[in-house]
């Protein structure tokens, strides 16, 4: 069992492992990822509540602006428009935070699945590599086939980015995260523009006057 597999599943069963465990906490990455995903989902649900509440306030303040403009109370309208701007700012921030949390949860579940793939495929790769050498002497035609199978499995492992141990490339992850964040921001902006009407001006309010 490779170091990665042991760390992944938390199956330390040797005497030395048990001594080590007694001295320091056991690291079961898979379980920790699961726990982190659950916690992220809880936080995401809480953000949903805040979002709903702010949207309600947004609607409310917007109506107040219309009301104030109808009554020709421009100062009051400005007051509510400022408040509405703050509410919308908060809405944007919470929306982005929520998307970021969802993105992290998704990434974690991907990492978890990739970890499972590595644990499953690692033994297969080593078995194929070991029989490839011995079989090629008696069945040379099979060598190429085995070679391609081995390459295929190795590629999957390379794609999973987990060979030999759990390594996470933070530089790449950050760049990617930046891209994701930018995309998320654009999406949120677009959604906000579609969902929320612009703050009305005096003329518009006049039109709405009854």
């Amino acid at each position, binding site marked *: 069992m490779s170091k990665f597999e042991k760390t992944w599943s938390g199956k330390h*069963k040797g005497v030395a492992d*048990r001594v080590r*465990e*007694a001295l320091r*906490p056991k690291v079961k990455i898979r379980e920790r990822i699961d*726990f982190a995903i*659950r*916690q992220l989902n*809880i936080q995401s*649900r*809480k953000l949903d*509540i*805040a979002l709903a*509440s702010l949207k*309600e*306030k947004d609607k*409310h303040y917007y109506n107040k602006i219309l009301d104030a403009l109808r*009554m020709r*109370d421009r100062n*009051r309208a400005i007051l509510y428009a400022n408040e509405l701007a703050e509410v919308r700012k908060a809405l944007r921030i919470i929306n982005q935070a929520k998307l970021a949390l969802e993105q992290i949860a998704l990434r974690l579940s991907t990492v978890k699945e990739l970890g499972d793939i590595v644990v499953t495929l690692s033994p297969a790769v080593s078995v194929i590599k070991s029989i490839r050498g011995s079989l090629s002497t008696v069945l040379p035609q099979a060598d190429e086939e085995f070679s391609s199978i081995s390459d295929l499995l190795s590629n999957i492992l390379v794609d999973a980015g987990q060979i030999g141990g759990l390594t996470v490339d933070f530089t790449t992850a950050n760049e990617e995260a930046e891209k994701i964040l930018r995309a998320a921001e654009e999406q949120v902006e677009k959604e906000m523009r579609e969902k929320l009407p612009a703050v009305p001006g005096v003329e518009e309010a006049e039109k709405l006057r009854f």
Partner: protein
Amino acid sequence: MPKPSDIIGKPVRERYGRFTGRVVTYESNLMGEVTAIVYESNGVLMRSGINSFYFDGKEVEIAPSAIIESRNLHQELSHLLIRLQSLFKLRSNKLISDNAFKRIRNELNSIYKVLSEKALTIMDKLNRRERDLLAKKEWMYGLFMNLEIARRLKWISDEVYIKSYEQMEKELFRTSNEIDDIKRSKIDLEGVLDELSRFIGKHVPAEKPKPVQEKEEARSSPVEGQAQKAFKMEPKEEKRGIIKEKAVSSNP
């Protein structure tokens, strides 16, 4: 429980900003522990039981009992989870004797039973409170409409309308905040219950196949939400204890 000397004279604030005041006196039990506070706000004396206020050492926060109780229960459940995790960790590392392990496990079992029953009650209370508040919100929307009618028919001036509207609006936001609080409390409780049930589920060995009759009974009993799901194993485990020694059996 807070001590009387700590709490008397301390400022009081309603959680959603409805009123403020100061603690005047208290009620206590035979041990001298505070069981309720009496506070003054705008010349009115009011009383809040131990389940309706939270004291952080500086000020007293008055809040609906469902929220305070769920906050306390969440803490208790989190502590229970930590204790269970520590116990099994010690057990798997052979740092605790069999007798001590069994004794503590039984103690935690009984705490778990008590808390699980409490959780059901509090969840129910939270749901009821949420329903009431939603009804209150609906009622308030009706009041907004009345105000609007009064304004359009010129029964009230614009100034009176604005003043009344703002007061109503404040209360509407407070009610919304309370509903949000309740929703968050429910999520927190569900989260910790889920963690507990996962932990217990992992450490309880798979059940043996039951006779057909029992299975039928189990199928017919309704499952009411997260909490009940988490504690479903309780009656079956009552005699032999809920938390078993899987950690021991998994070790060579």
